[in-house]
């Protein structure tokens, strides 16, 4: 933590004058307004921002088409400047398949939540991946049906307290969570599978790179690409907004491990990613103990 003494409050209503440059990443122009309807502390706007940034960076603005699922993120349909098709619950990968086959030069992606993709439409995404459709599926995973009030989904982790698992998810009664990334990575048609998160700035940057790699995979027509993004849902989790990131890291993040599950033809399981993340964290700690990061 910093030891800087707090000075007076500075003017942040106006941009500084000459001699200051805007720092990248700027907020993407594709996001038409920041007056959206999602709750305070929601992680989904960060996931949407990562997608918009990747589309702008890769110059895909004119060719991008989104097949949008049903969830809180659906309200973004009117405030993001991307062509989109609104799909029935869980059916976005099939609609995206149709769009891609009719418009092979378009950059087609789905945006779905965990309730939409893993509960309602699990077979849609699995078949689309197995067929090796050259499109990108993006899953925003918060482990609850946020839009309908915070009920358990198929990705809720064991012990997670939700509206209908008040005592925590119990394997004997509610079954085990589905690690959708691992399922898709096993399919021959999937070319790129990754799991990111938005619980801190580093994770957001890493996730943006994953989305970018997924779109690049699609542009090279290598097959199906999939990015899962863990997002905070303080409203559905019944916690204060400020606790969202830590809650995400300690519950969902402990089971749905961040990393690239399939890239360059190499499959890695969630267990392998976990071992790698633990090793990297230990290395970072040792580096900090030696007196700082080497860059």
């Amino acid at each position, binding site marked *: *933590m*910093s030891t*800087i*003494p*707090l*000075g*007076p*409050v*500075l003017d*942040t*209503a*106006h*941009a*500084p004058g000459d*001699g*200051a*440059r*805007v*720092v*990248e*990443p*700027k*907020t993407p122009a594709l*996001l038409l307004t*920041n*007056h*959206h309807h*999602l*709750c*305070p*502390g*929601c*992680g*989904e*706007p*960060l996931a949407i*921002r990562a997608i918009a940034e990747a589309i702008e960076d890769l110059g895909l603005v004119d060719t991008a088409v989104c097949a949008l699922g049903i969830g809180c993120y659906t309200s973004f349909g009117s405030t993001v400047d991307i062509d989109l098709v609104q799909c029935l619950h869980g059916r976005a990968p099939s609609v995206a398949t149709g769009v891609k086959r009719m418009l092979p030069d378009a950059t087609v992606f789905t945006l779905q939540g965990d309730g939409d993709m893993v509960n309602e439409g699990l077979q849609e995404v699995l078949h689309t991946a197995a067929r090796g459709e050259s499109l990108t599926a993006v899953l925003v995973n918060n482990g609850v049906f946020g839009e309908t009030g915070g009920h358990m989904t198929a990705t809720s982790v064991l012990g997670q307290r939700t509206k209908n698992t008040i005592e925590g998810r119990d394997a004997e009664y509610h079954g085990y969570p589905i690690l959708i990334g691992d399922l898709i990575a096993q399919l021959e048609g999937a070319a790129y599978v990754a799991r990111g998160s*938005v619980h*801190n*700035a580093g994770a*957001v*940057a890493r996730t943006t790179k994953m989305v970018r790699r997924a779109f690049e995979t699609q542009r090279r027509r290598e097959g199906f690409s999939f990015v899962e993004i863990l997002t905070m849902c*303080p409203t559905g989790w019944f916690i204060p*907004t*400020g606790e*969202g*990131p830590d809650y995400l890291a300690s519950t969902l993040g402990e089971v749905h491990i961040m990393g690239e599950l399939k890239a360059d033809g190499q499959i890695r399981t969630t267990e392998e990613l976990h071992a790698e993340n633990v090793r990297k964290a230990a290395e970072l700690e040792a580096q900090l103990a030696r007196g700082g990061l080497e860059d």
Partner: protein
Amino acid sequence: MTTVVKSRGTVTIDVESCKGCELCIPACPPAVLTMSAPVNKRGYHYPELHPGCTGCAACLMVCPDYCFEVFRFQTPVEHEVPS
């Protein structure tokens, strides 16, 4: 006693869009953002910037309401701050 605090960067904050989630407060590496005492038109507290910003853009990257724009000065600005 005063200390000189250098700001290598600064931000603009769209306070009327802020929903007071406080995600930017712990995300700020030099810890120079605090929540305001007053509230915006929608009734939410919003972040305020103090001297010492490095222009790292961590606040921008974690803000779900896209309130921040980040700038870096060519030459750091110095502030006299009571210590």
